[in-house]
């Protein structure tokens, strides 16, 4: 059971949060011009990373704010949490 550092509220128990998978997947703006493959890539495909993973969390039973976390999926270490729109920490090094 994780302890998660909500960027708005501080450290809270995992039961207050829900996880919504991989972060930084922007919704395409020109949806009607996409091929099925491109649209399928956005709707269905995720990286399923082993190791450092940026993922979306929401403080459901708290401030109800969405934010992102940088977590190692093997060790469950959460290296950072950051607000939507903020540059992911270490983005330059860990960019896949």
């Amino acid at each position, binding site marked *: 059971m994780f*302890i998660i550092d909500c960027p708005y509220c501080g450290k809270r128990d995992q039961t207050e949060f829900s996880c919504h998978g991989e972060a930084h997947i922007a919704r395409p703006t020109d949806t009607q011009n996409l091929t099925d493959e491109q649209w399928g890539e956005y709707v269905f495909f995720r990286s399923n990373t082993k190791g450092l993973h940026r993922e979306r969390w*929401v403080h459901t039973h708290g401030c*109800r704010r969405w934010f992102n976390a940088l977590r190692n999926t093997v*060790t*469950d*270490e959460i290296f950072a949490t950051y607000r939507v729109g903020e540059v992911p920490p270490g983005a330059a090094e860990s960019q896949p």
Partner: protein
Amino acid sequence: MTQAQRLDSGGLIDRSKPLRFTFDGKPYTGYAGDTLASALLANGVRLLGRSFKYHRPRGLIAAGSEEPNALVQLEEGAYTEPNTRATSVELYDGLVATSQNRWPSLEFDVGAVNSALSRFLPAGFYYKTFMWPASMWMTYEKFIRKAAGLGVSPTEPDPDVYHSTYAHCDVLVIGAGPAGLAAAAAAATSDARVMLVDEQSVPGGATTGRTLSDAYTQWFEQSVSQLHNNDNVTFLPRTTLTGYFDYNYLTAVEKITDHLGPGRGADKPRQRFWKIRAKQVIIAAGSIERPLVFADNDRPGVMLANAVDTYINRYGVLPGNDIAVFTNNDSAYLTALNASANGAKVTMVDTRKSVNAGLTSACEDAGIKVFTGHAITSVQGAKGVSSVRIMPLSDDSKSVAGQAWEIKCQIVANSGGWTPSAHMFSQSGGKLRYDNAIHGFVPDMSKAKSINPNVSAGACNGSFSTAKCLQEGSQAGVAAAAACGYQSTPGALPAVEEDGLGGIEAMWLVPTVHPVGEGSAKHFHDFQNDVTAADIHLAAREGFLSVEHLKRYTTTGMATDQGKTSNLNALAIMADIRGAQIPEVGTTTFRPPFTPLTFGAIGGQESGELFIQERHTPMHGCHVQSGAVFEDVGDWKRPWYYPKAGEDMHAAVQRESLAVRQSVGMLDASTLGKIDIQGRDAAAFLEMIYTNNWKNLGVGRCRYGLMLNEHGMIFDDGVTTRLADDHFHMTTTTGGAARVLGWLEEWLQTEWPEMQVYCTSVTEQWAVAALNGPRARELLQSVTDIDCSAEAFPFMSMREGKVAGIPARVFRISFTGELAYEINVPARYGRQLWQALQQAGKAHSLCLYGTETMHVIRAEKGFIIVGQDTDGTVTPLDMDMDWIVSKTKPDFIGKRSFVRSDTNRQGRPQFVGLLTKDPQVVLPEGAHIVAEVKDAPPMKTLGHVTSSYMSPNAERSIALALLNNGLQRKGDTVTIRLMNGDVVDAIVTDPVFIDKEGVRVRG
């Protein structure tokens, strides 16, 4: 028999406080401070149960919670509890225990024939025999369950009260033996908040009842008293750490009143479940002695050496007057000397050829005969050991040969070494390392999981001597406090004599005159699951070589003891067969709980009425008065129907359904999800969320909307009303309210943060009474200042005014196809509104109706219920609702998925009506429309019935269905095959059965 094995003095029992108890109906007496196990042993009872598979007679093996055999059914009736370990049950006056897994009696057990048939019951027997045919499993199962079950579950509600609680601390210490006490004592000299938990009733761990040195005794008493008196310390005895989860979240169960006996806990809960967050954890869980695996080592009376010590030292019980001690290491010599000093005639059998001369001479001084380089090759006595046979081991210790000796004894105290209790470290995600010096796995701190800061101290770290335990514990306590930012000043540690494991030579499988698996002898390594060394050989022969396969194939290490005494022996035997090193075979994962715990404790106080919170609308009391039968919708209690005297559900629903279409009905619609949406970009936002157009919706006007996910599938619907240019009132399904709010917030926060839109749940702020039916207008007009005429208040619009004197928003929207008004008032006026309308309604033949009638009459109009007529795999086009999908909007959520090949293909399930040929037949919901009727499944399905009712207004049965290519099949006859084999023909129709032109709703 009056405690024949009780010593005259010694032990932590109170001989002035006798306690009566019964075992299998027979009365016995023990003393305060006893466990059920020690009291039975004091009375000379060695046979305590029958084994799981072979029904072999079994007795105590251990003195602690690792006990695999002595599982008893405790107490009777509502208080009964199966599979309690006699070694962990503290004795109280009047205790009632019965043995398990025997029929008809413990002494004579029919199932023991399994033992004679054991060559036909090998490992994997159940898998092999009962795999095929699958349909026969149902038949086999009840016999297997009867023959192989352990205890019996209570059938009555649990009369006890439980509690659960959260705790936070800096340093959590697991175990109050020398290491744990030293750790807690050291950490507690700082300002750190310390928790110390221990499963025993008294601290001391393996030293309980032992006298180590005066200095130790003094240190021990002082440390315990200081911990009890320190406000920064929470010291929980009778508390077992059951699980270790991420970020140092640990669970423990505290047995508060179990030791007093059932119903004697006064106002205290029986058990408390602790959920603990600790900054640092010190694991001082000790170690568990391993049995030697030798021929017929499961006879009652074969015990672990340390158990014999514990029964003598702590409980003042000499388990037998003639004791053979069988060992491969030095630690059991202490047992031999201890038993001898307490009056037993002791014989020492050591598999090692050369032994520390100090030990052998001490034995000789005590009159103990020592056989070195010998092994026990057989154990006599089916229901209790009577003698053992020993023989010299060959040079390689793989066989026996030479002069055999018969040794008379009632107890075989055996030790195969000690296994550090690495359960908690392993549960914390750490990996283990094999230590050749002690022949056991120890925590590998280089492979610990960093999110769970912990350290192992003492025997669980492979450090068995008391001196080392004290030293490691104290250091760990200082370090853990320091890691939390606290400085400690630990006191001096007492001097103690060297003890512990001493020398050891591995002996994993003790040879006998026959090779393993031949002859009648069994070499058990897992007593609880009745798994023998021969089973491991069989598993290896059949290719189940990996430890995970071995475990599942033979069931070794499973069940309530989770292999505490058996796992390492199983691995080592497998390693030997494979010619591999033990670390190559690997270990299975240690899983919570460490020992079994009650569901009551896990549930804590959240049982009965507190299990799930019920949501009531403001009108709930009125519904109760009106005799409503309630239905659970999510957590809500909604009136299902309002039966009149003598009416069943069918009659009530038929009456209510007719009334809605003939006069006027009233439904409590307060549970519908309601979301207040405001902001500059509210309309633009709704354009993306819904499939249809919203920008052009006039103020005061209402519109029905469908919400899709990005897959293009329907996931909620509802009517949304424009209250102002930048202000909307959205309604959602009752069950979808929270999900939809979350969905809106997600898009606003993560994808379109530039939009100025604010969403607020107002579900519980508004109470809603829905009036439906041709007389709705005259009823409403009689209590409101709003002009309700068709011209002034058209369909799909909203008016504000007073209803029964209460400020209200009235929405002219309809889920019945009738003239309808949904009257919203602030929740605190809900009951007043309802009562006023009920009163006024008397003049207009008002009928209250519930959710069942709501379902029937909306189906008459073909209105869908999301989640009933849709299932997350249907698009608006599948539902024949393309009228609500904008062709002009460039984008909305899910739009792009409409042109995917799958959403476009022919043959998708589509929404249709079904009329059975026989109008009296009501199809079961979920029934399948089949391509071709066969005698038995499988049959090719073409779709299924989603809604089905007897409609009083259509005067026949009606159904809604999803049917492949259904929109093109209207007029066709289809066949529905029911579960009972009946076949029903139905005609595919339009899903609207009443007022197809939609005249009534606009009236």
